[in-house]
């Protein structure tokens, strides 16, 4: 038997999952909010890793399926929530819509024998077309039932009473199964971290499913296609079908991320189809490591943290009034550079990793962990557990040591 699960992986899972499980009790709710978004972006990045890192199909526009999932969830959710008090249909609908779009595009690309580079451009064009479409739907006429597309604003619902028209928002994920006293609702606030755990659970689930996919025939053939498509075809595999199937599955995963995003902010707008978001997704995967399933999560967390940190701190640092003109110039230059740092970092990551052929940060980290496994089991893991235990005690019961 091949070993499916190594002790290093158990260790890594513990090191990641234990803190993540403790976050809602160990930090203020904003931390859970932000981590939830990083995980949502991580799921999106994972879908790109699946088809790019493992099947060699580069999709510049994976965000198209993310956006479609979010919009479909919004449209169905807005129409159904008042009737049924739950969003089951919206969840399924979002997944189906994303998978369907991916299937259509995948069919056109792979069965139309479009070369790899063109395929990348087509996916990019797809997301930009959807962007152009989404921003042009601001008018009253763009409706599905009570759901307004809203153009640049993003999607919202609209109801009519006797005198006026009022707007309402996309509903949170609401699961209400028979036997439940009250519905499960996606929320991340001072009272509840249900949404956070939903996102965490979805991340783990997607990770496990993709890992399993890569073990079965579909995944092995996909890796074969990445290595040498002609060879795999000559073994009797219809490579077009496998690419098509994998692309569809990846589309559905991206759609799931989109659904969670819409539920997280109760909001989706055309920017999800935009060039900036598309390039961020590629950067997450490149930085995290395109052959590592965790890479996307790591990349999303690093870039996400960096971006918000810089947006929060730097633009408003004040230049002292008594600075000399030279100092003023240097400080202003530094400030501007740091203000644009998210863009500069993204560009540098793309160019740097491509030129240096690096794996991204996750594979080296996992090699380190493998090498110092023993040390990590006995020192790192207890330190992490103790730190989080202390955070929880400090925040919940004011038992703070420092």
């Amino acid at each position, binding site marked *: 038997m*091949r070993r499916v699960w190594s002790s290093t992986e158990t260790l890594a899972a513990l090191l990641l999952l234990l803190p993540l499980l403790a976050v809602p009790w160990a930090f203020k709710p904003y931390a859970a909010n932000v981590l939830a978004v990083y995980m949502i972006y991580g799921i999106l990045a994972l879908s790109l890793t699946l088809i790019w890192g493992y099947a060699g199909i580069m999709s510049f526009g994976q965000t198209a399926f993310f956006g479609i999932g979010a919009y479909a969830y919004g449209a169905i959710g807005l129409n159904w929530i008042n009737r049924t008090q739950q969003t089951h249909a919206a969840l399924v609908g979002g997944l189906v819509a994303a998978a369907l779009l991916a299937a259509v595009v995948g069919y056109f690309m792979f069965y139309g024998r479009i070369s790899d580079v063109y395929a990348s451009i087509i996916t990019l064009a797809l997301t930009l077309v959807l962007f152009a479409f989404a921003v042009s739907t601001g008018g009253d006429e763009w409706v599905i039932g009570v759901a307004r597309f809203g153009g640049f604003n993003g999607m919202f619902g609209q109801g009519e009473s006797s005198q006026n028209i009022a707007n309402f928002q996309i509903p949170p994920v609401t699961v209400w199964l028979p036997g439940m006293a009250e519905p499960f609702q996606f929320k991340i606030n001072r009272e509840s971290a249900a949404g956070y755990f939903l996102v965490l659970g979805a991340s783990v689930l997607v990770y496990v499913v993709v890992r399993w996919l890569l073990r079965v*025939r579909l995944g*092995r*053939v996909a*890796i*074969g296609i*990445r*290595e*040498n498509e*002609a*060879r*795999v*075809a*000559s*073994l*009797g*595999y*219809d*490579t077009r079908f496998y690419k098509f199937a994998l692309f569809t599955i990846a589309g559905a995963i991206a759609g799931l991320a989109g659904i969670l995003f819409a539920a997280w902010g109760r909001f989706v707008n055309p920017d999800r189809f935009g060039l900036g978001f598309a390039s961020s997704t590629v950067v997450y995967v490149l930085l995290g490591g395109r052959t590592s399933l965790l890479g996307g999560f790591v990349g999303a967390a690093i870039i996400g943290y960096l971006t918000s940190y810089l947006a929060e701190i730097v633009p408003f640092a004040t230049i002292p009034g008594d600075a000399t003109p030279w100092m003023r110039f240097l400080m202003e230059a530094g400030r501007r550079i740091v203000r644009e740092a998210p863009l500069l970092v993204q560009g540098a990551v793309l160019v740097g990793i491509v030129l240096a052929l690096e794996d991204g940060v996750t594979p080296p980290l996992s090699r380190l962990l493998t090498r110092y496994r023993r040390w990590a089991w006995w020192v790192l893991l207890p330190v992490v557990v103790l730190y989080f235990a202390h955070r929880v005690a400090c925040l919940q019961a004011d038992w703070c040591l420092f």
Partner: protein
Amino acid sequence: MPERILEVASLTKHFGGLRAVHLDLTVDAGELRCLIGPNGAGKSTFFRMLSGAMRPGSGTVRFRGRDITGWDAFRVARLGMSIKFQVASVLEELSVRDNLHLAAEFRFGNRAGQRRAAAMLEVIGLTERADHPATWLSHGEKQWLEIGMASVGEPALILLDEPTAGMTAEEMKKTVRLLKRLNEAATVIVVEHDMNFIRMIAGRVTVMHQGEVFAEGSMEEIERNDGVRDIYLGKGSHYVVRR
């Protein structure tokens, strides 16, 4: 009279204004056929057209009684034709076992495919390296692995494009034994440069020149053919003792 497994009629391919292949050829079931000819004779192009990797310009290919002209590679493979490419193209990042498993799986399914892959590991002598990534293998080992991949699915016809390129004399002997063993179950067509190898496998030989069949016969007949000497740049003994 043996069954004709492969019938090729006026198969042509042009590259720009240049005619690369114009070919008629038949192969009987159970044969071990050698295809030789100088560089640029169109041997690899011919193989690529047979296996579906390249679309022919005109002409027909019949395989096991069916017209497979212009079929996609995977359909040709499913009908029972497999190929080892000229440039060793194993799946570098997959383990040796996974390479073979993948090749066996689509015919026999997952479980049986695993057993067949294990058996084939024995045949090609790579059992000890089964869980290494294919990229760690030596050049010769990659060739064997690819021969193994081409034959593990029990095809009716195996096309081998230069199976001994870059092998030592010892490795070559092993390859000959392997080939003969494969030939017990399948028809084999081999493209080779190395005349020692051709002599050792002792099959029927077809000589290609400028995309056409130039001569055909046993190795002895071919070696006596002056025309064949001439097309190898007139250097009488060049092709007999290469290297």
